């Protein structure tokens, strides 16, 4: 588990006291094959070969936000909270633009023993928190303790269930030994999720978002924050990545209203915005000096059928419903084409994703015969939905229309979010929902096993132990090739019998002023705007 090429360049540049770009330029002049041609091409493609400039105040309008906004290194409530977390906090490991796990975070080493149940974490040398405290082993231990604290119920804690709170030991100033309850192949994924931020010892121990001072190791320090309105962040002069960040400051502004947000970008009140409604893409692209940044995601708005409730407890009915969906049409009509067709399987960015599963197509004739065999020729079902994310209501309506061809009557019930996410949430027999980008096993933990916090489909069937057995086996298998084989078996089970209709993955549509540089199109991010510029450190004004 070595660092990737980019990191090696970073490391070397830091030692020589020059920026990565400068180093590359000098290397090119001197004809040195420093990073290898592959590495150079990759860097050139990533658009960071251009020389970044320092200075300026970056203003970004983020969709959503309300008076319940918080800033916490390990939790979020609203969408702007994500941007604020990214500006101030960092994780031990991270994901690159292809959603591959990279050792580009605070950890210089994070390696398992042979069995996979003891991990050694060593943080980089000389990283400082915003208050001047040097990052050390005790901060890592404190952060992990806080993440899994059952009283705080933090967002990122669920994925770290294998961490034994009594099994963390400080070996030296920068090294922690982590004993897990059982071998866990997903621990790196869990530590790489953006909500697993590393916070200093004593950081807001009993509440979320109440830290004073609210400090992390990130590129920007928090200056002021008004929930529901905006936060102001200033450049962290002691930031550990050489040369970064480039802005003097960042202002993150809440913009719940779509029209207002787009107008703010067009009018020049902000330099970038998230979530452009598909209908407005043409308007933004048509304006000189403004552009839309489109990035694929692995976020999905499935139709969820409860496998333990009639009529969907009959696997034939579930299969029929899946055969009813005309996925390309759903992507075209519900997402205005700004997305990718799904195959009833989540986690397409995962290297473990099984691309060999045949793409499922609409087949009304087969759907009808399956329904007939199941005695549901004139099936009528209610489909509950809410305006939670783009694609939920739209997908439900397009599906309802497609179902008519198979003689299935789908009554779309659009509820207010209070009712939808109320007492009945996760109990609706047939509903829509929204999931973000995750790797396969992390997603299984979050939504496809009985202990998952959000298992809408109640998969797997209580009588069927096979899926759970495979899941436990996969977690314990550190060997990647062997683990992928097990994961493929699990995927096949879900693909054949599962309760999700996964028809597509929506793209992020963000807008920016063309004076903004450093944006990478096609970044497979978890969050908008290239994961908010990894904390607004990869953007600059040209």
């Amino acid at each position, binding site marked *: 588990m070595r660092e990737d090429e980019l990191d090696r360049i970073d490391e070397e540049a830091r030692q020589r006291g020059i920026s990565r770009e400068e180093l590359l330029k000098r290397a090119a002049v001197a004809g040195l094959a420093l990073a290898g041609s592959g590495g150079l091409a990759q860097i050139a493609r990533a658009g960071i070969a251009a020389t970044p400039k320092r200075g300026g105040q970056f203003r970004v309008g983020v969709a959503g936000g309300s008076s319940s906004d918080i800033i916490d290194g390990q939790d979020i409530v609203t969408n702007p909270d994500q941007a604020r977390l990214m500006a101030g906090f960092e994780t031990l490991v991270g994901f690159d633009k292809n959603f591959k796990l990279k050792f580009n975070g605070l950890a210089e080493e994070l390696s398992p023993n042979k069995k996979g149940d003891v991990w050694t974490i060593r943080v980089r040398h000389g990283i400082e928190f915003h208050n001047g405290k040097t990052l050390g082993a005790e901060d890592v231990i404190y952060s992990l303790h806080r993440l899994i604290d059952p009283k705080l119920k933090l967002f990122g804690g669920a994925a770290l269930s294998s961490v034994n709170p009594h099994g963390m030991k400080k070996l030296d100033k920068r090294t922690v030994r982590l004993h897990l309850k059982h071998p866990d192949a997903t621990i790196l994924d869990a530590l790489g999720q953006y909500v697993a931020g590393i916070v200093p010892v004593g950081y807001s121990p009993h509440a979320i978002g109440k830290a004073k001072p609210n400090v992390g190791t990130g590129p920007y320090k928090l200056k002021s924050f008004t929930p529901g309105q905006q936060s102001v962040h200033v450049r962290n002069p002691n930031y550990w990545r050489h040369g970064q960040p480039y802005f003097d400051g960042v202002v993150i502004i809440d913009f719940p209203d779509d029209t207002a947000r787009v107008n703010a970008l067009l009018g020049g009140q902000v330099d970038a915005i998230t979530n452009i409604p598909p*209908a407005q893409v043409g308007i933004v692209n048509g304006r000189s000096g403004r552009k839309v940044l489109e990035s694929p995601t692995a976020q999905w708005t499935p139709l969820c059928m409860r496998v333990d409730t009639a009529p969907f407890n009959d696997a034939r009915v579930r299969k029929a419903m899946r055969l009813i969906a005309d996925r390309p049409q759903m992507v075209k009509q519900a997402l205005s084409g700004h997305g990718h067709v799904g195959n009833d399987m989540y986690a397409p960015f995962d290297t473990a994703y099984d691309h060999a599963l045949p793409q499922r197509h609409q087949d009304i004739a087969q759907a009808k015969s399956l329904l007939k065999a199941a005695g549901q020729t004139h099936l009528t079902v209610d489909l509950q939905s809410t305006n939670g994310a783009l694609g939920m209501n739209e997908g439900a*309506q397009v599906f309802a229309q497609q179902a008519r061809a198979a003689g299935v009557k789908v009554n779309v019930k659009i509820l207010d979010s209070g009712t939808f996410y109320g007492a009945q949430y996760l109990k609706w027999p047939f509903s829509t929902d929204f999931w973000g980008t995750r790797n396969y096993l992390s997603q299984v933990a979050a939504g496809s096993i009985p202990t998952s916090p959000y298992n809408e489909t109640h998969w797997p069937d209580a009588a069927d132990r096979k899926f759970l057995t495979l899941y436990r086996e996969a977690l314990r298998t550190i060997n990647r090739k062997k683990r992928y084989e097990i994961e493929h078996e699990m995927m096949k089970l879900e693909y054949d019998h599962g309760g999700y209709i996964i028809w597509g993955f929506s793209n992020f549509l963000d807008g920016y002023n063309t004076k903004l540089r450093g944006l990478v199109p096609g970044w497979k991010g978890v969050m908008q705007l290239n994961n908010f510029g990894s904390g607004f450190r990869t953007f600059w004004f040209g």
Partner: protein
Amino acid sequence: MSGVAAAAAPLALPKRRRPIVVLLRRAWRLPRTKVGVLLMLLLVGTALIGPFFAPHDPAAFANIPYGKPGGSTPLGTDALGRDVLSRFLWGGRSILGLSTAATAIGLVLGVSIGLVSAYSRGLLDDVLMRIMDVILAFPSIVLALVAVSTVGPKLWLIVLVVGLTTMPRVARVTRGASAEIVERDFVQAAEALGEPRAKLLLGEILPNITSPLMVEASLRLTYAIGLIASLSFLGFGEQPPAADWGLMINENQQGLTIQPWGVLMPVIAIALLTIGTSLIGDGLSRASAGIDRTGGE
């Protein structure tokens, strides 16, 4: 006794049929009434016959979302790519049906309460009218939202709530108009004859307040159309994928700047419909008050 009845009969009888016919005739002479009736006919016609001329199934996908007008979609497509023209032609039925039903409920309840109030006077009158005042004091849209969010978006509930919020105004007008009628001799005569109370209210008093009621009915219809369209716009009326004018405005507001027809058509239709009904109401009220009378009556 029989003398009083005989004296009252010639007074009351000719009045029975006449007021409403006279009113309608007088109102029709006013240009505003004609324009109002024309608009009403146009929109009711669109709503009732329009669906037969729709080029597409209102729920079928005809093009990309917010497709530009042209080809088989003369008014372009909506947020999901459905034909705007077809949805517009299909979308008037529900709003017309619901608002007419709501107005009818409001009229029946309001007239009953108003008549009982005017006739009984005393404590019952006070209690009924204060209850009406309380309902009036609440903004009707808030009442409707409270009801819908507790029970859920049901069409019968919308009709009932809009009917109930229509009721107090009708009751007040009815009571005001009949308060003076109740004092008349023929009513007292009928009372003396021992006519059943219901028959007395509906047979003797009601026919004499038809003019103000006609005016009120058309104004209440205007108001019901507006309220029901607003509730649909907020997502509490017809549920997707149904085509409905109010819902269309909501569904397509995102695309107003690039493909405005999905919003403009229902907005224009609802506007013309309310203008039509209120012009008719205005015509009726002017005719009944004797304004603009051209003579000859």
